[in-house]
């Protein structure tokens, strides 16, 4: 099966003299949920920026469905939807208008748009707020708009960066349920989060990053074996792996 995302020996960062990412190499398959974990400054957000096409690798290639950004910018971008760590909204647009703008941008037709938004809005308790301007929303509500926009598009790959910040417990559960649903329908998810206890239960595989390098990748069992901590929770395994990484 062709991977939906291929990160092929990527070295990158803001400066060629001091790369942040060092020879990253991993794949994400359709129907797979992969957790990108690491300490602050490990390179998670920089990795995501490279995948989004906001930064260009110094070496190596990133392919979505076998195509690089240079091959076809529009096809590349059509493959994924992104939920940023900090909500990025247009202050002059309402919740409904953000959703409509996203639907238009991704070529979702009007009928599908109308069919998809109702359950999404209800699931995230946003149905009463569709007419509210972005500038009048709380941090959590703004984050929900970002989530709604991404899930409205129904892409093949979801790139989700720290989605739980500012979300209430009910919305966190809705998001996790939604991730399970889209995963079951064949979509892939790359999620970065510090809430390891939560993503441990949902992700199929993990990418442990430390100081810009991928130090371990695989299932929870693989990580446990690498850490020499069979049946330990991901939190402990992660701490052991990165502490060992620091001392190495």
């Amino acid at each position, binding site marked *: 099966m062709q991977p939906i995302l291929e990160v092929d020996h990527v070295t990158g960062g803001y400066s060629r003299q001091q790369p942040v990412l060092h020879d990253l190499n991993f794949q994400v398959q359709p129907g797979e949920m992969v957790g990108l974990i690491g300490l602050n400054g490990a390179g998670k957000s920089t990795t995501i920026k490279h995948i989004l096409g906001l930064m260009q690798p110094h070496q190596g290639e990133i392919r979505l469905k076998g195509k690089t950004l240079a091959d076809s910018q529009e096809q590349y971008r059509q493959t994924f939807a992104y939920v940023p760590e900090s909500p990025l909204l247009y202050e002059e647009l309402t919740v409904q208008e953000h959703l409509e703008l996203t639907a238009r941008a991704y070529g979702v037709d009007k009928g599908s748009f109308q069919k998809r938004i109702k359950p999404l809005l209800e699931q995230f308790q946003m149905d009463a707020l569709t007419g509210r301007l972005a*500038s009048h929303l709380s941090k959590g509500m703004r984050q929900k708009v970002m989530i709604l926009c991404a899930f409205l598009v129904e892409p093949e790959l979801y790139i989700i960066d720290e989605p739980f910040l500012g979300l209430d417990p009910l919305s966190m559960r809705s998001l996790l349920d939604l991730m399970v649903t889209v995963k079951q329908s064949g979509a892939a998810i790359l999620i970065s989060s510090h809430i390891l206890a939560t993503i441990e239960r949902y992700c199929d595989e993990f990418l442990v990053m430390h100081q810009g390098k991928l130090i371990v990748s695989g299932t929870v069992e693989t990580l446990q074996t690498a850490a020499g901590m069979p049946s330990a929770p991901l939190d402990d395994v992660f701490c052991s792996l990165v502490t060992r990484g620091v001392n190495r």
Partner: protein
Amino acid sequence: MDMKAMYQRRSAEFLKEIRPYLHYALQSLIMSAVAAFLLFSIAYRLFLGWVTPAFPWELLCGAVMLLPLAGGKIRTYLQDADILFLLPHERGMNAYLKAAMQKALLLQSAAVVAAWGLVWPLYAKMTASGGTRFFLILVIWLLFKWVILYGKWAELQLQEAGTRRWFAVLRWIGTEISAYGMFAWKLPYGVMVLAAGSIVYLALLRVPSKYVVHWMLLIDWEKRHRAGVYRILNWFIDVPQVQGKARNTRIPTSWLPFIPFQASSSYTYMYTLIWLRSELLGITFRLTVVGIVILASLRSEWASIAAYLAIALFGALQLADLKRYYRVHIWHRIYPLPDGLLQRSVSSVRRTLHLAMLLMLAIPLCWTLRTPLEALALFLLTAAASWLYHRYK
């Protein structure tokens, strides 16, 4: 905390912030300003030679005095964070706000002196007045400006938005009547009406409920003033994006049926909404209404053409500001939309709005110009220029 020093520091910081752009704008403007001043001086001299008491000069003088008397901004430089840090010192804000008022009074009084200096040659000719009257009326104007500025400040502290709007309308209408009265009636009557009007206005302002300092409104207005300064500088040089507060205008979806639900219309949809909710809607609307009134009141063919072109140019400059909104935004690099679509869409929205404005402004020209065909020709010519401007600028 030295509140007056804080105000002065913020004022100086803002000046420092805009200085690079201001420098460039002045460089670009200086030659055109000198040329415009010379042309205006010649035209004004010719007008003074031609004008007779039969000309409605009182209305013209009243109109010239209206803007400096009733208008003007009160820059407070208040910021969002002040709600946390300065609100606890609300009672001690007097020195800060007094400094803001003093600065506004100084600048706006200078504008009143300039406007009166402009009107004076016409007034002197029509009423055969001497220099003493110039100074006497100037003192009256300055006192009146002080009343109006105080009134505007009180307006800003009103708790009810509806009441605030009514007082703003009262300020503009009252100022126009008073200014017109000073020219149209004998001076003692004019002064009496102006004084009586001022007393009634100040007394009325005491009635509605007010905040000690209406923080949220003052911060919103400050944002708008900053955005306004940057908007003007943007006519000369690319400036950073500084937006005023979005207006919470309800726009039913059925209002935008002309924008197809498809990817290529995404940015057209977005920028139409931004125009509807930003300060640009009010600016476009006011400019069009004022333009129609001016064009409908002019009787000279050449004056009408010149006014039409001037308003068209001003409208184009104002609408060009739309491109500054979200010029750089992460979603523009993530949406699967072709490069260049954003620029094309902004240009298209600007062009469409300007075209609608030009069309409405051309309606009174059908009566002012010799034939409606002339009005149509002028409209088409200006529309072509507008297309080129919005396409390439």
